[in-house]
């Protein structure tokens, strides 16, 4: 675990010298501000719900951009050879990469916390709902970042990693559309597999263990697959 932290620290450092990371943070904050203002002005309600709803869509597109570099650049530049010959396990590398993106994302997300005092000042927001909404954004973010790490492990090309990540995320998000075409039984299963339903529960203020388990297991699955991909790379050479 300490190895994962060593890897994560270096990646965080790389985020702070990367223009793309600043761009992602700026875009995320700009859009969140827009959603906040528009939401507050339109519904005249002390709630962050509209912002949470819109940010999930933004996240689908920005999370893969944050993670695209993580493993693909290592493969492209050959630095992966340093990591894979250091006394560090493959899953520690993957976990470290994932943590760095999660920390960077959580840091950016934390800045939107500024809206809460504004709401408190001018209205009576339900802080519990806001809290579960943030929990939802963090969990959804974790799953999407893990998916991004997986797509970054598959290729040595950052752009390919980003595009694959976006397509996979959008596909996952829209999976329930497919479910609605396939009848009740299937729809239920697919409804569980898609992240959107679980997310709407959380921004509505419903913290259900099933939703937490869903996000954590999705995150775990993607990271597990990414470390298997890394291992498979060793065999292929």
């Amino acid at each position, binding site marked *: 675990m300490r*190895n994962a932290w*060593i*890897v994560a620290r*270096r990646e965080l*450092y*790389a985020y702070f*010298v*990367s223009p793309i990371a600043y761009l992602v943070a700026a875009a995320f904050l700009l859009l969140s501000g827009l959603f906040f203002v528009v939401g507050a002005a339109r519904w005249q309600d002390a709630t962050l719900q509209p912002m949470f709803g819109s940010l999930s869509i933004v996240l689908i597109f920005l999370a893969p951009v944050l993670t695209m570099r993580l493993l693909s650049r290592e493969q492209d*530049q*050959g*630095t*992966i*050879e*340093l*990591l*894979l*010959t*250091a*006394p*560090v*396990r493959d899953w520690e590398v993957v976990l470290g990469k994932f943590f760095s993106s999660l920390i960077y994302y959580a840091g950016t997300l934390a800045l939107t916390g500024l809206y809460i005092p504004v709401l408190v000042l001018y209205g009576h927001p339900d802080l519990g709902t806001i809290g579960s909404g943030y929990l939802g954004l963090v969990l959804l973010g974790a799953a999407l970042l893990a998916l991004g790490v997986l797509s970054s492990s598959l290729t040595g090309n950052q752009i390919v990693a980003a595009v694959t990540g976006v397509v996979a995320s959008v596909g996952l998000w829209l999976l329930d559309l497919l479910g609605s075409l396939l009848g009740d039984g299937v729809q239920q299963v697919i409804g569980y597999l898609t992240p959107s339903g679980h997310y709407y529960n959380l921004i509505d203020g419903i913290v259900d263990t099933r939703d937490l388990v869903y996000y954590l297991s999705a995150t775990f699955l993607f990271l597990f697959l990414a470390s298997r991909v890394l291992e498979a790379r*060793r*065999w*292929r*050479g």
Partner: protein
Amino acid sequence: MIDVAHLCKDYGSYRALDDVSFHVDQGEIVGFLGPNGAGKTTTMRILAGYMPPSEGHASVAGFDVFEDSLDVRRRIGYLPESVPLYTEMSVSAYLRYAADLRRVPDRRRAIERAMEACHIAERAGDPIGKLSKGLRQRVGLAQAILHEPQVLILDEPTIGLDPRQIIEVRELIKEIGREHTVLLSTHILPEVSQTCSRVLIINEGQIVAEGTPEELTARLHGAPRVIVALRGTPGFPSAESGFSFAGALQVLGAIPGVVGVDSHGEGRYEIACAPSVDLRPELARAIVEHGWDLLELRAAGMSLEDIFLQLTTQEPAGKNPTADGKLEPEAQSTAAGDVPHA
């Protein structure tokens, strides 16, 4: 310190390594010599724990590279062919990261020592992306020796360096080799004879020769041979000078110690001598005594370069029959038969 037994590596249907076995003792500096694509990098990657072998076993410091990969990786320093550098980091930040990954106890001191050994201390604060190829190579080397590994695996350590830096790096490798075991690959021949105590020559995934540079030269050389050229222009071989090619053949063949004489025509002879006898003075004397015009007299010694070329340029039989082609089967059999795989 390094034990490799029957190592094979397949990339799809392509066999990059085919039954490679060798052994490196503690404190040895072994040179891994071979043309590009011979399997040097593959072997080193397997030893460094980067990839598992398809067949066979390899162990470093008693640990199997596959079963106990982490134990192996803790004990080696590895400089890959393409130096793994993060261009956005400064030299010192990069080395701190490498030291952390390897859990170096006294990080600051280790980094200072490595930077000093590789002469990059004055560039510690520079971003790696701004460094020249030679400096990058040295940063990579510093990374490999940071944790004072028992075994150092260097893939083409002097590539991209200028002559002065090459000498420095060689000195550094020799210095490290006094305490540590070093396996280095190269396709630059002088490097091997200057730095290595032993040489492994690999070609097309197989070890074709093994020994000290001197041993290799001696073994593959076989009986010493001398090349003699006498003037044989038209009209010159005449009755009064007493010279004829056939006569010369006879005279040279009669000198004690001469095992055989091959005529290459035009007055050129290749003379095979008894082992470890230098017959050049005798040959010169005989030629002068007969009053012949001597154009050339030299030992046909084989440099490491010749050996390397002979061992690694395998033309399919009949495809390109050259003078070399004639020598080749001999060299091949020498490599396979006489040089023991220690």
